């Protein structure tokens, strides 16, 4: 499995902050900025080690990506899924489908520490 973290986030600044945090713990970071591109990437690209998925995306929502692709495709069974949302209730609703729910605003340190813990031991 590749040590790739796929960040699906439409806001450029947030994406760059998340990327910086995750890159800080030596992941390879791949950025996707909208739902349709994310669908394309998920279907055609190799399954990443970790997905950081924003629930509010243009074209196809994060929730749809999660339920229709990630949860249905066996290639993603081992992928760690973290969803990000500003809506605490929405986050709660998906707790059982994902590994982690992060409520915005997401702390740089928090994300860095979390991803650092998730990284396979032999890699850290």
């Amino acid at each position, binding site marked *: 499995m590749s040590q790739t973290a796929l960040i699906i986030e439409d*806001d450029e*600044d*947030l994406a760059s*902050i*998340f990327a*910086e945090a995750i890159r*800080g713990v030596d992941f390879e970071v791949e950025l996707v900025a909208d739902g349709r591109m994310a669908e394309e990437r998920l279907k055609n690209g190799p399954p990443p080690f970790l997905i950081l998925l924003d629930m509010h995306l243009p074209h196809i929502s994060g929730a749809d990506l999660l339920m229709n692709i990630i949860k249905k495709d066996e290639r993603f069974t081992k992928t760690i899924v973290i969803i990000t949302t*500003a809506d*605490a*209730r929405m986050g*709660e609703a998906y707790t059982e489908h994902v590994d982690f729910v992060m409520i*915005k*605003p*997401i*702390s*740089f*340190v928090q994300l*860095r520490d979390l991803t650092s813990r998730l990284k396979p031991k032999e890699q850290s």
Partner: protein
Amino acid sequence: MRALISKILDVRTADPDDARRRRLLNILLLGIFIVAVFALIGTLIDSAFRQGADPEETQLTIFATVLAIVGIFVIYLINRRASGYVAGLTFLLLLTGIFIISDSPQQLTEGRSLFLFTIPITISSLILAPRASFLLAAISSVIVSWLALSIGSAVNVFVIAGFFVLALVSWLAARSLEQALQELRVINANLDQVVTERTHELAQALERERIEAGRNQAILNSIADGVVVFDTRWNAILVNPALRGILDMPTELIVNKNFSDLIEHPRLSPKSRQLLHAMMQHDTQPPSFRVEWGKKTLSISAAQVYDNSKDRNANIGTVTVFRDFTREAEVEKLKSTFVAIVSHELRTPLNAILGYAEMFKESVYGPMNDKQVNMAERIMKNTQRLLRLINDLLDQAQMEAGRLTIQMAPVRPADLLENMHSVMDQIAQEKNLKLTSEIDAGLPHFLNGDGARLQQILVNLVNNAVKFTAQGTIHVRLFCPYENKWGIEVSDTGLGIPEEEVPKIFDTFHQVESGVTRVHGGFGLGLSIVKQLVNLMGGEIHVHSNVGMGTTFTITLPLVVPAESLETWRNL
């Protein structure tokens, strides 16, 4: 018959005494007339059948009787047309004259016919005037004296004295009768006056009522809202014209119909129908609410009408006011959409600012000195504050739009406190305040609740406490006061709330004393949101405060222990 007799006897005159006297005279005349007629008939029969009757005497009797009848008729005419006094006096003199010729002077002066003179004396006081009895007594005295002298007897002084005593008695009797009648007339007149006044008052009251009713109708007609008045069985008894425009249907289809007919109208959405059914069934004062009527949104408010008169408080029906709320509803919807969009658009860049500031603080791009780190922390703190304000605004907007709902799921009270500490510990520490918490032993380990909203309530209350506490402790307690309730208590050792401010602290955008707010910041939304959330959860919030000593907020909420999930959660 009676009317005919009345017509014959009554004399129309303004003076009631005069009328009475003349009527009395007429009665006497009628009586004598009848007697005379019988006498005439008797004489005629007598002369026809009796043998040996003296024809001269019979003729004389007939002549006298006819003369009497004519005299009676003449007096009657005088009485009716001219003067009661003249008629009366004539009658009495005629009567006296008849008496004089009816017996021998011997008998008239001291014998069996002497009493005849008492009759005119007595009658005169009644048909002329009370004091006329003296006149008749004098006339009778003269006649008796003259008769006595004519037959060579002495004048009988006792008889004359007797006449005058009788005149005195008649005068007194007649006078008191007249006085009594006079008083009766005064009483009658007063009574008439009272009746007239009352009648007038009644007429005026009726007129006022008519004007009032007309004015009320005019007011009702000019109200832009639709008004329907229902009786206790929900039959529409009154409808104003504006309702037609609001419901777009003729008011004839509503008035005198039952409300349930209107509820079944297809233009009403099913949810609205439910609301209206609920309104009909609740005997308690129903609040106002909105219904969908075709493409319109209507606001309906209903108020029970009570009859407070006669010391009873009986419900006599319901007044409902229908208002076209379509525009307002659209504006409200727009407003909440606007707030939602604005909030989202504001939050996103703030999240970025927060992230970049944190990166500075964490020296991601090279070492930073203490001052730079401190500045990054300040940027973060202010950004977080701004975010909280936006969240509050968003919540408020959602609550106003009725879109904020409570979602129940099993919640662990211990988690609530833990999360609260993770957010608030640092904030309390910065002000050198102690933030402590406890869970009462009686509280179940799991209970049904909206975790995120409970969290928000706790954070808002603690945040509020921190804001208004300069030193001391903020204590949070979760407890179980009754079997079916649980509670949250947040107490501080802060400023306290002045008594007059207490009722206002939960108002939207309310801030306790502008000076304090300027120091502490905030929109004044925190407590308002807490209260609304508590209400949505079916709970209550109370505040107890002493100025200078501190404040305690106590929330009680319905306690439902999640039976099914209890085991699952226990195993976690």
